[in-house]
């Protein structure tokens, strides 16, 4: 066994010993992955997974390093990029991935990627030409 494998085994027993917590946050992440276009919020996530919302918030942040809300936004932006690459319009993409306002989607998209949705799409489509 290498030094790395020994360290992993040590970390695993030190950090990841609570399998119930792990199962809970993994299930929440999968739920977000499947339902990102819908109106998701912490109340809904905590109700559907039978876990108090503050506990969920704390656990998700502990194991994934960001809040469920931040993860949801990242997922929507990732899916928006995929949608824009296929040639769908900015408006269509915005609503398809779960945002409710084209204006706020465009601002958020630019903050996260450094480019507006339309500029991102132009670049992507030109790469493929």
């Amino acid at each position, binding site marked *: 066994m290498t030094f*790395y494998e020994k360290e992993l085994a040590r970390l695993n027993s030190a950090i*990841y010993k609570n399998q119930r917590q792990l199962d809970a946050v993994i299930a929440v992440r999968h739920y977000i992955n499947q339902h990102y276009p819908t109106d998701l919020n912490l109340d809904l996530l905590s109700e559907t997974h039978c876990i108090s919302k503050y506990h969920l918030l704390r656990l998700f942040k502990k194991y*994934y390093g960001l809040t469920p809300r931040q993860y949801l936004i990242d997922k929507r932006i990732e899916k928006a990029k995929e949608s824009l690459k296929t040639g769908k319009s900015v408006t269509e993409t915005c609503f398809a991935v779960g945002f409710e306002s084209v204006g706020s989607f465009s601002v958020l998209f630019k903050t996260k990627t450094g480019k507006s949705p339309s500029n991102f799409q132009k670049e992507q489509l030109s790469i493929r030409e």
Partner: protein
Amino acid sequence: MRVTIISIPVLDQEKALRFYTEKLGFIKKLDTPLDGGNRWLTLVSPEAQDGPELLLEPAPLHFEPSKVFQDALMEAGIPYTQFDVDDVQKEYNRLIELGVEFSVKPTEMGTVKFAVLNDTCGNNIQLVQNL
């Protein structure tokens, strides 16, 4: 400031280029000749061709401490860097078929699943899937 380059030290740039493109599936982006047969050689992921570039750097051949560091990481089994994949087990199966050697088979730990492969150019590389 923006992150555009991630460098990986390699013992042989041409061999590394073949491994990272033919086995791992990256795409060559820049290939500029430099002094002494060295190249500014970068790759991108096919899914993010405008994303960060992977620089295959011949540092271990020209700077002894780089070689010492690379050898120490290899001996300890520590990955030099890691790449995200959608399905570690699927990538493992695909790469095993291509003759790639793994020091760590697909393993779940906490919220990730990972495996560690040998890039044949002096480095362990970790593949990671978020669970």
